[in-house]
């Protein structure tokens, strides 16, 4: 025990010396970007294992692709290297991953997180290290704030931003008025519940008949669904993630709620959702995806081809393009600012990036102003953009459609 603590003190001292040296070096040459032939590292953080691994791995691949393309372009004077760190959707694991990232003096920027609670845990670490964090997938509204500015920026819309177009669609276009809300007890679920209630409160004639909070990892939703069935709602709003969302749909059908529409947040928009729920049960589930469909994005086709060509086995998922754009924003900022962290932070906040998602700029708290969104629906075991679906054309009817 004693030996261990001595060792860790030595390590800590070593780390401090390193960071001091790094700090000194950059102060002297702040104006001129450093362009020696060296390696610059960018950390990627996300859930690479655990129940959300499919989101994290897809984004990691897209991120790696962007860095690989930047290296191959030959326009960089240094070699970029990806440090991918698993946060396992767990704040504790995420914090130690972030510590690992900031301890490496070559890591100049980080792109991270799909889970808001994990981002909450790592933000103070990046802030105190002065390393910019670009969030690719965590959508808790409070992550980008005056407190965290300028170190934290985010390319993904927040839940509030994400819920608004979904609510407008479900209420105005689909005419659903009577709602049951099911969300999980995490920060993600809670702010979804609040955002959805808020949206409904803005539309007269709508009502929320029940709000249920579920625990992540819970396996039995029949008591909640039995209650909801008795309330004859027009639709169920689900503000959680894949596994629970899939079970809710399956168990709802078992209880005879086949004819009740399920509308979900982007947390369920993943092929794994359909796989877990079964394509029959998932048919007609609606979810929103921030941004547009990859095929409709400028450069989307090239991205898709490059991704396939690079040989990644896992699909890039809903958030792949975000991680890809986040990576490119960091790369561009590095070009302008060089390895000076302060200049890099500023360059990121001032970025105006024309990427897959369209033109991304950040507002006064580092939140993206780019909130295009696409409504998707499950059709024959696939997520299909609403506008291209048989539901839109009237060939099929959504559950509970009049």
């Amino acid at each position, binding site marked *: 025990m004693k030996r261990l603590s001595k060792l860790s003190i030595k390590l800590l001292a070593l780390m401090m010396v390193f960071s001091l040296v790094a700090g000194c070096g950059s102060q002297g040459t702040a104006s001129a970007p450093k362009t020696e032939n060296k390696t610059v590292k960018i950390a990627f953080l996300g859930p690479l294992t655990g129940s959300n691994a499919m989101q994290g791995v897809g984004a990691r691949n897209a991120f790696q692709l962007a860095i690989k393309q930047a290296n191959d372009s030959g326009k960089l004077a240094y070699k970029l290297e990806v440090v991918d760190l698993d946060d396992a959707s767990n704040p504790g694991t995420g914090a130690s991953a972030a510590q690992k990232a900031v301890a490496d003096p070559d890591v100049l920027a980080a792109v991270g997180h799909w889970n808001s609670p994990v981002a909450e845990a790592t933000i103070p670490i990046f802030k105190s290290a002065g390393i910019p964090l670009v969030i690719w997938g965590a959508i808790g509204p409070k992550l980008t704030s005056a407190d965290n500015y300028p170190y934290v920026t985010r390319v993904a819309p927040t839940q509030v931003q994400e819920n608004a177009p979904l609510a407008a669609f479900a209420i105005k276009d689909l005419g659903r008025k009577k709602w049951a809300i099911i969300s999980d*007890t995490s920060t993600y679920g809670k702010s979804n519940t609040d955002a959805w209630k808020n949206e409904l409160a803005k539309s007269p004639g709508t009502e929320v008949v029940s709000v249920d909070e579920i625990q992540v990892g819970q396996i039995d939703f029949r*008591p909640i669904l039995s209650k909801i069935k008795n309330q004859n709602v027009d639709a169920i709003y689900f503000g959680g993630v894949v*596994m629970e969302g899939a*079970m809710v749909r399956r168990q709802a059908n078992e209880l005879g709620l086949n004819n009740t529409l399920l509308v979900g947040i982007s947390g369920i928009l993943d092929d794994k959702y359909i796989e877990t729920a079964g394509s029959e049960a998932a048919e007609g589930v609606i979810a929103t995806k921030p941004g547009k469909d990859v095929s409709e994005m400028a450069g989307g086709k090239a991205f898709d081809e490059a991704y396939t060509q690079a040989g990644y086995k896992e699909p890039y998922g809903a958030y792949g393009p975000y991680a890809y754009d986040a990576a490119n924003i960091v790369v561009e900022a590095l070009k302008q600012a060089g390895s000076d962290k302060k200049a890099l932070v500023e360059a990121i906040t001032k970025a105006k990036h024309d990427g897959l998602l369209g033109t991304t700029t950040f507002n006064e708290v580092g939140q993206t102003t780019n909130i295009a969104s696409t409504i998707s629906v499950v059709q024959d075991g696939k997520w299909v953009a609403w506008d291209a679906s048989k539901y839109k054309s009237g060939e099929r009817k959504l559950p509970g459609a009049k």
Partner: protein
Amino acid sequence: MSLLLSQIINAIMLGSTYSLIAIGFSLFFGVMDIVVFSAGDVAIVAAFSILVLMGTQMLPVLDSILPHAVSSVVMVFVGAMITALLMLLMYRLVIKPFEGKSPLMPLLSTIASGIVLRELIGIFYPQGRNPQAFPQMLPSGTISSSLMISWRNVIIILATVFLVALLYWFVNKTKIGLSIQAVSQNREAAMMVGLNWRLSILVTFLIGGFLLGVSGFLVASYSEVVRFDMGSMYGLKGFSAAVVGGLGSMFGGIAGGMLIAFIEVFVTAYIPGGSAYSGVAGFLMVIVFILFKPEGILGEKTVEKV
């Protein structure tokens, strides 16, 4: 009224899955005086074994010679046999070496082996840490849509009743079952009258493992999704049910399982905002029981031996 009835059915169904594992705990506790804490993980191993078996050509082959229902039962039987053998192996590796030593040791060794099982699934099953859809082996239609009763509900409840009845018959009416009882009541006396207590213990672990296997199948069919770490919460609920009902008592396990399930379901269904606290309410009740009725609903009052 129909809502109340369907919530009762929900609770009985959930209670059935808790009861089976609680009986498993009680069986092991009865003959060995130890708590086998890996029971929940062993049950989930059965679910994953069945998942693996379903991926092989076994089911189509069976289907070609047997009716589908029978071949499904055979699959479940094979899955449960795997855990029965696993349980025997665990007895040999992590329980037997500590016989006659402090009961804390097998407690710790079974907790540890449970974690080993859980992590092995996570590591070696393809994408093992992700939730896996569990094949619908039970018929999925509804019997009564207004009461929300499906065939699955009925089969899960009937399967539990059948297993419990079978176990009751085995323990009370067969020679080996009676010798298990004798060993659990007084091992020295059982040895003196010439019973093979070692065999009784092996049979208990075999049966207990089989029971856990079926319970794992039922819980997976019930949630329709399995994940490698589901066993820890399931085991904890089962153990709580066994304690509340009276550790060592078969019907106590059922009573305890039902009580926890009813509390969870009714807190969810009838207390506004209660769904977030259903687990809390269930375990709170367990604490109350430990405080005021430590012997459990059907357990015998433990008298301190002098």
